[in-house]
């Protein structure tokens, strides 16, 4: 019953976010600030993780090719498919749920605890629009992060495959181009947009409606990470079934 009430409150919150918009000159600054915090500030960790994940996928694929009948271009093919379909959009989103999600929950939660949200409301500001809307808009740039993650992941696979002696560069590139279906990129970007909205709104919900003090801010951050990850995984399954099934 509590879960149902929370889901209901979440959708009411989403509706409120789009009511009584904040003045554009103020909102513009907030959006730029959030793009810097949420998108630009996450590039380093995303590039680092994607590079090594791509490398690990290439090495593991190579190590599992025991039959001489299987072509070596499978390493490039498997890396491309794994990175584009799952590792870049889904794995990166789970990382972002931890990094960006906990930042969103703790910053909004701290504002709740220190009555800064009440102060906004009393001034006549729609606090949900002021706090959550810029995060949603900033996260619409998330597919760019995913595109970078795809590129760097495949590059990591190429580096590991070629410099690890598992594949020649020509074989790897041939595998990358083999049976390429452009819709897989579209599918990946559709997923990343949906995940971006989840990463912006679920942690905001947990921060905005939290009760208590500093300890509860920490608890809310953990809870928001768990729920964002759970929802991402469920939505990933549903979208995969709908778009590729």
């Amino acid at each position, binding site marked *: 019953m509590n879960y149902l009430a929370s889901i209901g409150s979440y959708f009411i919150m989403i509706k409120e976010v789009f*009511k*009584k918009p*904040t*003045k554009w*000159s*103020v909102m513009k600054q907030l959006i730029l600030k959030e793009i810097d915090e949420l998108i630009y500030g996450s590039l380093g960790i995303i590039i680092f993780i994607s590079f090594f994940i791509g490398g690990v996928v290439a090495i593991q694929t190579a190590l599992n090719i025991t039959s001489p009948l299987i072509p070596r271009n499978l390493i490039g093919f498997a890396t491309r498919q794994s990175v584009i379909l799952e590792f870049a959009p889904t794995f990166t989103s789970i990382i972002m749920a931890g990094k960006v999600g906990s930042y969103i929950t703790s910053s909004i939660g*701290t504002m709740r605890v*220190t*009555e*800064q949200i*009440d*102060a906004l*409301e*009393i*001034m*006549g*500001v*729609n606090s949900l629009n002021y706090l959550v809307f810029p995060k949603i808009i900033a996260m619409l740039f998330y597919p760019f992060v995913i595109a970078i993650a795809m590129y760097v992941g495949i590059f990591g696979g190429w580096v590991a495959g070629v410099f690890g002696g598992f594949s020649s560069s020509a074989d790897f590139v041939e595998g990358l181009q083999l049976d390429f279906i452009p819709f897989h990129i579209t599918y990946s970007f559709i997923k990343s947009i949906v995940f971006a909205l989840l990463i912006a709104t679920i942690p905001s919900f947990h921060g905005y409606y939290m009760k208590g003090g500093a300890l509860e801010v920490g608890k809310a951050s953990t809870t928001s990470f768990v729920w964002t990850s759970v929802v991402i995984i469920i939505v990933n399954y549903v979208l995969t079934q709908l778009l590729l099934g």
Partner: protein
Amino acid sequence: MIEVNNIHKSFGDTHVLKGVSSHFEKGKTNLIIGQSGSGKTVFIKCLLGLFSTDEGTISYDGKIYSELTGDEQRDLRQEMGMVFQGSALFDSMTVEGNVMFPLGMFTKQSKSEMQDRANIVLKRVNLIDAHKKFPSEISGGMQKRVAIARAIVMNPKYLFCDEPNSGLDPKTAILIDNLIHEITQEYDITTVINTHDMNSVMEIGEKIIFLKNGLKEWEGSNKEIFKTDNEAVTDFVYSSELFKKVRQMYIEERN
């Protein structure tokens, strides 16, 4: 003027406000006092519209809050200023940024006009040197003064203060009390203060409401509170030996 008519508020099975009525006049400093758990904070949050009442009405110069649409309620809130117990300053903004915030949100003033207005109110609360500092870099008393400056920057009709001098030393507390009282008269604001501080009661309490168990137990001024025979009020106000002696001296002087 704010008129409160028989307001009730419950949270689950807990009936916090059980029918409180009163009115708060323009240009006067009105104090809400009472023990912890008496319903003071809930009462002030109902006045601010942060809690909706279960029964009864609150009207601001004739406008009944519960009958206004969501947008009208937000517009009315723009006429309110609030000083929170913990100041509630925005950590990411400087003192000047905090004071300019409502101007940036609701006016079409240029940056220099907003800075001029912020400087006027910061000067009024004696904080002109701190305008480039962040809230974490200034003392609790200074934070309260910034909160007052932010609350009055839009020339509000109504000013609400929740424990404005809690956590402050007695000298600073008196300074804050006097500042709020002066601003109330100067700007002709309806001010409502939620307090535990007996110095505030004696110094600036032009109208005092004593809440007990969610009911209005007593109402009067700081002059009348000396004379009252209401046992609950005298027990609360004169709980310290010092105030008991002061009251005794006052009564003896009168006799």
